[in-house]
């Protein structure tokens, strides 16, 4: 007993400064993220309208949610958008990084051009692309003016392709950062690997696909966190570009949540929708995040 107390007198006060310094993080994690989430989940079982109130109605909000065509459309749109956005931003980001990594001239000029949209907000991005894709002023008008009278490129007013209109803008804004991350990752690859592959006579594209990309796993993980969290949260861009239209062709879950919480003044419904979003995020992200960031003790 005595040895034990003298050995570690105060587990709580061990690294006390570190704990004190982490209080803001603990506060954010527990009070804001966990607290806010729990609060949201609890109120998703109520019939709260404009103001939160604790009148429980069981699963009513969820039943309604899953029978609402707009919600279903939102989920579908987000899936399409998410998959396309992941594929395209990773591919384009990587290809651009690989091109910039060829010891080219003016690398920093190209890099700056590709990265600058990242400094602009989604609202601005949405506005500019809305303008560019406007059939009466933008690309379509321009191409028709060149003499190709039947040219049709009208993504923002065509239900079947509106999601691509949003994707074009989202990629414009976001691939720069992905490219930057990938470039950093490429620069972190051991030079000898490249040399070994060259001596082995492996073509460059094969070296990238079979050797370099698998080696860049940590970069892809970080990038994935950044892209995926952006996809789940996509809202501003849609609002600025299409307001969810035409029809429900570009509705997204975050917008459903916002609209029902605030403009429909049905907090319960909005909370139920957010709970579903959170649940999806938790199912996908938590096990992975724990493995990636929590379980591994690199310095154990």
């Amino acid at each position, binding site marked *: 007993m005595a040895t034990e107390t003298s050995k570690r007198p105060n587990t709580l006060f061990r690294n006390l400064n*570190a704990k004190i*310094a*982490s209080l*803001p*993080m603990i506060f*954010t*994690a*527990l*009070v*804001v*993220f966990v607290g*806010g*989430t729990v*609060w949201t989940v609890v109120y998703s079982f109520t019939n709260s309208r404009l103001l939160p109130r604790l009148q429980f109605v069981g699963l009513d909000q969820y039943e309604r949610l899953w029978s609402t065509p707009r919600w279903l459309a939102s989920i579908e749109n987000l899936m399409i958008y998410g998959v396309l956005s992941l594929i395209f931003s990773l591919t384009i980001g990587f290809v651009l990084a690989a091109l*910039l990594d060829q010891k*080219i001239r003016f690398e920093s000029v*190209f*890099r*700056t051009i590709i*990265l*600058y949209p990242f*400094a*602009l*907000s989604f*609202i*601005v991005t949405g*506005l*500019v692309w809305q*303008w*560019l894709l406007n059939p009466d*002023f*933008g690309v379509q*008008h321009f191409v028709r003016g060149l003499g190709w009278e039947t040219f049709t490129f009208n993504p923002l007013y065509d239900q079947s392709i509106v999601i691509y209109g949003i994707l074009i803008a989202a990629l414009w804004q976001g691939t720069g950062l992905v490219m930057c991350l990938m*470039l*950093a*990752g490429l*620069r*972190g690859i051991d030079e000898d690997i490249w040399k070994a592959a060259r001596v082995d006579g492996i073509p460059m594209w094969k070296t990238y696909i079979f050797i370099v990309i698998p080696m860049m796993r*940590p970069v892809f993980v*970080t990038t994935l966190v950044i892209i995926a969290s952006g996809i*789940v*949260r996509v*809202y*501003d861009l849609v609002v600025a570009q299409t307001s969810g239209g035409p029809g429900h062709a570009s509705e997204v879950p*975050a917008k459903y*949540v916002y609209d029902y*919480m605030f403009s429909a003044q049905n*907090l319960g419904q909005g909370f139920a929708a*957010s709970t579903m*979003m959170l649940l999806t*995020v938790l199912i996908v*992200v*938590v096990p992975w995040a*724990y493995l*990636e*960031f*929590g*379980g591994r*003790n690199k*310095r154990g």
Partner: protein
Amino acid sequence: MADAVLTSHPAAGVEPFGPRPRRVFSRRNIFLYGTLIMVSLYYLLPLYVMIVTSLKGMPEIRFGNVFAPPLEITFEPWVKAWSTACTGLNCEGLSRGFWNSVRITIPSVIVSIAIASINGYALANWRFKGANIFFTILIVGAFIPYQVMIYPIVIILREMGIYGTLTGLVLVHTIFGMPINTLLFRNYFASVPEELFKAARVDGAGFWGIYFRIMLPMSLPIFVVAMIIQVTGIWNDFLFGVVYTKPETYPMTVQLNNIVNSVQGVKEYNVNMAATLLTGLVPLIVYFISGKLFVRGIAAGAVKG
């Protein structure tokens, strides 16, 4: 043998000597630079259109096409966007919002980076029990749509009595900037050789001593990354700015939204574009000035998982 060597090269008859012949217009270069130039055009096009449109008069916009350079350059739209565009009864353009944005951005960036860097440092170097759980929660928090958190945050701010104040807004930005910045700082500090940290501890430096004297001086690149992310994020924020402030302190983005969405008759695209450019100017300048460090810092903060 010699024949084979000779015919395998275009410069047949010349004994290979010196550097491998590389023509400027090799197929590889045409492909490489061609692709990059095409891509650059795609990235530059919106900026070009914004600038060109903002310099045209309305009649020219209505009848011309968006890509044509202005026939007659006018700075009227810029002046209007900056100082006279109306929202409701306020006809002060963006100018009012500019200083508000500065007042919001500076403390928010400083506080959020300070806190995130200390978090990252505590997580990477001190590893107290449970730290990883909090960190995992933070990372998951990065996926929560902001809209979901509006209401809980209203309640938290109300209970703290700082709703509608600058302090409240700074707190909100700190909270939402925390996941990604903590991740970056944690990764960066984890890549600092542990010997350095151990040596400092043996020398008797404590938590803060090591942070201020060892870690801070060697973390310029990652601070630049965090700064760019935060400056652009906070400056570009619309949602928190509109929900957690009031008209006297509305940031520039709210004014921008007001100008762009206050349609009076026809949309004044030129004024909208000028306003958009003006609003994006600060993050663009920050980015252009420190872009090089950004790339370097990203390498340090993101690559080492």
